[in-house]
């Protein structure tokens, strides 16, 4: 702890219990909500300056919630999208991690495949989606594949660069103990890389969500993206917005889940700037 942190900690500790919640960061989060709501409300309901087709009123979106959530087969659609995201993320992250480990261990493999893998990442999901549909159809499998392609690179490239972060002295220590390449990988390189890999997992999770939704937009028989398309063609903008909020919720849950796992796994080093709580190191 730095001096100022110590002082801040003392200040927190000595303040009466009932006032502590005032320092909670979630208060700031909560404070944002009325601000956004009132701007939204002013622009639509009050001044009527934005057409409802562009931005529906908050009341109408609120009213659309039970309609969307209660619609026939809604839970199936949610489940479909969640399966695509989770499946795609699991597949993409696993492939990305192992490819990272593989390429980090060989200069030749890196020279041969790294440019190619990076170029592959540059192909947008929208372009790939019709091809994948043509190959394996409109079903969930194609979306999982799409989400996996979208997210593998973030995990791959962070793994690759993270594995190179081990200190030369630490590598020398392993060498002096005659550790095998594999032992050095498992006991030194992978643990050293974990904080960076978790950054890649966070990034990969969001790209997996995007990959799944975009490919549903291109062509699907179910899922939240598919549902959005249907609402849009029916000019039900309010319902469309309800699903946008659902995606926000999904993104939030995914972020917090990965952060929670990271906290467990990388207990020795937590990134100060990407963590959503006030806990001291």
């Amino acid at each position, binding site marked *: 702890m730095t001096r100022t942190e110590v002082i801040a900690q003392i200040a927190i500790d000595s303040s009466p219990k009932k006032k502590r919640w005032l320092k909670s960061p979630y208060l700031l989060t909560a404070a944002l909500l009325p601000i956004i709501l009132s701007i939204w409300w002013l622009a639509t309901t009050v001044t009527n300056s934005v057409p409802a087709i562009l931005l529906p009123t908050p009341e109408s979106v609120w009213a659309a919630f039970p309609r969307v959530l209660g619609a026939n087969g809604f839970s199936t659609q949610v489940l479909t999208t969640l399966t695509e995201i989770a499946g795609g993320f699991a597949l993409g992250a696993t492939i990305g991690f192992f490819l990272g480990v593989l390429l980090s261990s060989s200069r030749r493999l890196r020279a041969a495949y790294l440019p190619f893998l990076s170029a592959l990442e540059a192909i947008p999901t929208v372009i790939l989606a019709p091809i994948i549909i043509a190959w394996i159809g409109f079903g969930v499998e194609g979306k999982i594949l799409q989400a996996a392609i979208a997210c593998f690179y973030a995990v791959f490239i962070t793994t690759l660069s993270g594995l190179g972060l081990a*200190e030369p*002295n*630490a590598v*020398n*220590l*392993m*060498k*002096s*103990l*005659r*550790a095998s390449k594999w*032992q050095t990988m498992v*006991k*030194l390189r992978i*643990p050293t890389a974990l904080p960076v890999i978790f950054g890649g997992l966070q990034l990969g999770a969001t790209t997996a969500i995007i990959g799944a939704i975009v490919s549903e937009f291109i062509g699907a028989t179910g899922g939240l993206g598919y549902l959005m398309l249907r609402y849009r063609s029916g000019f039900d903008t309010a319902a469309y917005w309800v699903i946008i909020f659902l995606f926000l919720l999904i993104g939030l849950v995914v972020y917090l889940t990965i952060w929670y796992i990271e906290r467990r796994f990388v*207990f*020795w*080093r937590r990134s100060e700037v990407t963590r959503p709580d006030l806990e001291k190191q």
Partner: protein
Amino acid sequence: MTTMTQTAPLVRVEGVTKRFGSGDKEMVALSGLNLEVREGEFLSLLGPSGCGKSTALNIMGGLLTASEGTVTFSGEPLTEPSRNIGMMFQQAVMFPWRTTLENVLLPVEIFGEKKKDFIPKAEELLEMVGIRDFRDSYPWQLSGGMQQRAALCRVLLHDPKLLLLDEPFGALDEFTRESMNQELLRLQDYATSTAVLVTHNITEAVFMSDRVAVMSARPGRLVDIIEVPFDRPRRPELQTSTEFIKLVAKARQMLELQ
């Protein structure tokens, strides 16, 4: 130049040259280094910064290979790291995801042995350096000196015949450094191993060693060896004696003559 040895030396470095890079970027770090390390002695490698001390030590430890010349360990050519050689570096190199005890037991895991068999020895060593109470703490909960103590335990766990120490306490403050040096001498005596210590500190080199090998500026080679005749165990008061100060002055002169 080198003094005669009675028994066969534990390490013999003969005409070792080390070049890094090639072509225009070639750089000669060592040029024809000759050195013998006797069984059971404490030898210091003293030389100006960048003269190739770490390079020489890494070659003796089998981490680097010489461009020219040979190194033998116990009479055998040395080409790769050996279990009988323990190395310590300027940083403690404690893995932060392991507790002190787990860090000390790292070599056991790498050698594929049973941890259970080594726990008593590890605890004994931790006790000797006074950090047994911290066996379940993580490195970030330890001071720099405590971390180096743990690193010392790790390197001594398998009773290496040869200890190669590359300024292991260079990052510590003066007081901690002195007490660590005492600790090191005590433990070297306990483990009856041979030690080579790299340092730029002249007083430290003389105080710790049986012999001090003085190296020239880059490209490094041996200038001379100073025999240090004082009895052991050595007490800190020794450093104020006239003979001690004379030896320090001699070593300083050798370094400055270059």
